[in-house]
């Protein structure tokens, strides 16, 4: 396969690094969660790409079709999406509580307040 033929994997790597970089570098708690989402989305695309077959059809027995895409990675990713949504919801709920307690969602500001305790 050519390098261009693997373009979805290049997108996976690009998204993965972008998301990971946002999680590490951003000091804003909400932006970190957005970064985490991008990071997870890249893994979803990775799994889906693995299961897809060029020219493959939906995995239902049909006359005259011999190539089917593998449904298993797609089903797995449905589960992973649910996990991702729950993580995001919980993370954002924590951010709401943190904002109530500190009146800020900036990491630097929160650290400053805790040190002055």
């Amino acid at each position, binding site marked *: 396969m050519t390098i261009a033929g693997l373009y979805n994997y290049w997108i996976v790597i690009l998204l993965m690094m972008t998301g990971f970089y946002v999680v590490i570098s951003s000091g804003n708690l909400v932006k970190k969660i957005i970064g985490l989402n991008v990071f997870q989305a890249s893994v979803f695309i990775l799994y889906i790409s693995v299961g897809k077959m060029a020219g493959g059809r939906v995995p239902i027995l049909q006359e005259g079709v011999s190539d089917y895409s593998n449904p298993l990675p797609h089903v797995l990713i449905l589960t992973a999406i649910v996990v991702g949504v729950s993580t995001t919801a919980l993370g954002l709920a924590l951010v709401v*509580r943190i904002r109530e307690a500190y009146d800020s969602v900036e990491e630097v500001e929160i650290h400053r307040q805790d040190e002055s305790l």
Partner: protein
Amino acid sequence: MISAQLPALQVVVPLIAAALCLVLSRPLAAWTLTFLASAAAMVVSFLLLGAVMDSGTIDYAFGGWAAPFGIAYRVDLVNAYVLMIVSTISTVVSVFARASVASEIEKHNQGFFYTAWLLCLTGLLGIAITGDAFNLFVFLEISSLSSYVLIAMGSDRRALTAAYQYLIMGTIGATFILIGVGLLYALTGTLNMQDLAERLPDVSGTRTARTGFAFLTVGLGLKIALLPLHLWLPNAYAYAPSAVSAFLAATATKVAVYVLLRFVFSVFGVEFALGAMPLAIGLAILGAIAVLSASTVAIFQENLKRMLAYSSVAQIGYLALGISLATPAGLTATILHLFNHALMKGALFVALGCIAWRIGSSRLQDFAGLGYRMPWTMGVFVVGGLSLIGIPLTAGFISKWYLVLAALEKGWWPIIVVIIAGSLLAVLYVWKVVERAYLAKPPEDATRAEAPPSMLIPAWLLAIANLYFGFQTHLSVGVATRAAAELFGIAP
């Protein structure tokens, strides 16, 4: 008939109890349910351990769907042992939790608290019992998400930031594991661990296999809190409610270590994981640094829960050292220390919970004269501390002894030096507390008053277990040796 369904019951009982708990929501009812479900899980885990010891590995096809298509549960000695640790600790600590939670968590949140507890238990048991790599990821997330909730319920506002930090790092770790599992699936077309183990040797030279292995180990390193990936742990254990600190410190990282053992020994195989890949040397170096640096940091902590948390990071270093030796003896030491560390950290955190219940603080400055004000509780702390140091006739001594023997057998002298230095550092931080509690004058208005029996009894159960397994090693060492032999694939 019912005994054939034990592997399913192990996970399903706490899961259904969690749902019921949410419906009941009244504190007393929720607690009773949590205790009963934990106790039921404990009984099941003992029955499973007995069955595995008598008649070997149990395979269970969930829903009657055979392995390559359905999800298989597979119970061998190693995970029966881990199931036993997790469910026993949950039962003992849940007895303690009743009074502790009542004083630390608002009434309308207690139902949610116990729901999250049961979900966390479900997740940890599920991780240990499953034979399917993706199923493991799902259970990992169940236990992680519920532990973020449990930690965030701490009364200090820093519990929120600690839970947030853990959520970010834990999710990165879990996603790394997901990537690793995905790459292995792409390579072999299976998620079943046994099938993976059969098909991986043929493709172990490929870059995909190596990348998958790297993602899995780094992701697990985050969950295990192996230095330098431990940053989430100290705050999470320091600001979580007392009962949660005791429960998680004794179980969560242990289960993650079990997963590492499972992937290194059962799925990838020793030759690839510790031979072809540089994991052994990495674990040895990081483990040694963890033992020395985390023990040193622990000495300077004013908040004793934080001190114990750093000590946990150091103990994980010992576990990593045991794995890095890549011999059955080293592995025996690691498996043994999983159990003994659960006992000592359980006892210590429960003792701190009793003290927090009584004086509302876990700061060293408030400990003056506590040896006279709460003699029974401090007794537990001293026993746990001695075990942590590794004084003979305590459980901690046994695991360190086996680790030293394993290192001797391999001729790795620096590791022995590290173990002894780590124990000496542990003497320092445990002595610091003992000195303040027994030699400093109590404040004028202090009275002698103990924690209630519902907290003291579990504390003493754990303390006595620390002493019992210090001289009666037949059960713990026997199972650990056989489990290690099984992981290495040699007949005991």
